């Protein structure tokens, strides 16, 4: 099976029903995509297939055949990937980091200036246990140059 992963064409020998997640991690050696639940619930395994976000733990590799797959290792190829990566570091979007690859990839599908509501919808399928989400929203807003909200306050008294 031929698939393009992060711009590179790969010839994968795997059972067509093998999870795309496992093909990426094992056959392609790209361990940046994580498994959090195995049931398409947490989004830690999010990758992009032809520009669309999917949970790779519930996608058969057969469905990625002939497609362009982007994992976190290839995030800089997206329009906003690099800005998001930096913003997650600078604005606290990443704490333990396990949800971060999936979170960033899901966020790459947002447009510049995306509103908080749009951000929440785009990330609705990505669970985080460390941040409680405000810092993730601030990171995405910063990367996408969303105009400042008055409501997000956090600081010294």
């Amino acid at each position, binding site marked *: 099976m031929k698939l393009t992963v992060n711009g590179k064409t790969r010839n994968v020998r795997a*059972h*067509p*029903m093998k*999870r795309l997640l496992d093909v990426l991690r094992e056959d392609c050696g790209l361990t940046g995509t994580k498994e959090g639940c*195995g*049931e*398409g*619930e947490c*989004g830690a395994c*999010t990758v992009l297939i032809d520009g*669309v*976000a*999917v*949970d790779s*733990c*519930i*996608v*058969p590799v*057969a*469905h990625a055949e002939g497609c362009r797959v982007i994992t976190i290792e290839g995030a800089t190829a997206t329009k906003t990937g690099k800005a998001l990566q930096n913003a997650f570091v600078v604005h606290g979007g990443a704490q333990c980091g396990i949800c971060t690859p999936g979170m960033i990839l*899901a966020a790459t*599908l947002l447009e510049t200036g995306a509103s908080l509501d749009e951000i929440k*919808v*785009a*990330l*609705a*399928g*990505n*669970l985080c246990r460390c941040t409680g989400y405000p810092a993730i929203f601030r990171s995405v807003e910063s990367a996408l140059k969303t105009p400042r909200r008055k409501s997000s306050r956090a600081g010294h008294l």
Partner: protein
Amino acid sequence: MSLVRPRSLNAALSLMASDPTLMPIAGCTDVYVGLHFGTMAQKRFIDLWRLKELHGISVEKDVVRIGALSTYTEIIESTIVQKRVPMLVAASREVGGAQIQNRGTLGGNVANASPAGDTLPVLAAANARIVLRSKNGTRTVAFDSYYTGYRTSVRQPDELIAAIEIPRVDGTQWWRKVGTRRAQAISKIMIGAVRGRDVRIAFGSVAPTVVLARKTAAVLSAGGSVADAQAALRTEIAPIDDVRSTGEYRARVAANLLAQFWKETA
């Protein structure tokens, strides 16, 4: 485990005619969960994902035709569905999150036949039709007659759901899902309803299959009170206790949703 990958719908139908044990898969959002937990008894699969004939959303003579492999994302973005069946857009928006919406299909939701299938109350309220195809031809089944019991339907092992047809919906459409949280939630209870010359009200997660509450709707159509309709509703649904909720809560919220529907569509 094996996967056959036909290149056309006809090839798929031939394969299914010759081997009715093949289990069709498309978006896999449910199948792979079953495989992961070891609850999937089937081992032989037929891949429908790339069959172009099963994609596409169109309208002809006021009937919306949604290809079985239309994903929730495609439904949400379809101007045809937005205009004509907005309650289906509303239901699709509340399925999982973006990743699930990009892969889950309407046909899959119907075929999976879960009592908690998010689109099923909508299809029931919309008086939809299921278009089934086999090697021998096509037949159309009214959604109301499609399910015969818990996770069972009239679909024969050699048939595929080709499309879902939704005739013109006469009246105001209303939809509400009560989940365990605001996204990535299995519903505790759902209502899809239409208020027009006729009233059609359907509930999900309150019985082994989606329930079209005919008696309840008849009370309201005839000008009865909400209280009387709620009393009728109590006889038409049988919600249970499970890990997510209780029968009592579901019964009460069903009644509340009914009242909210009636009030907001006045």
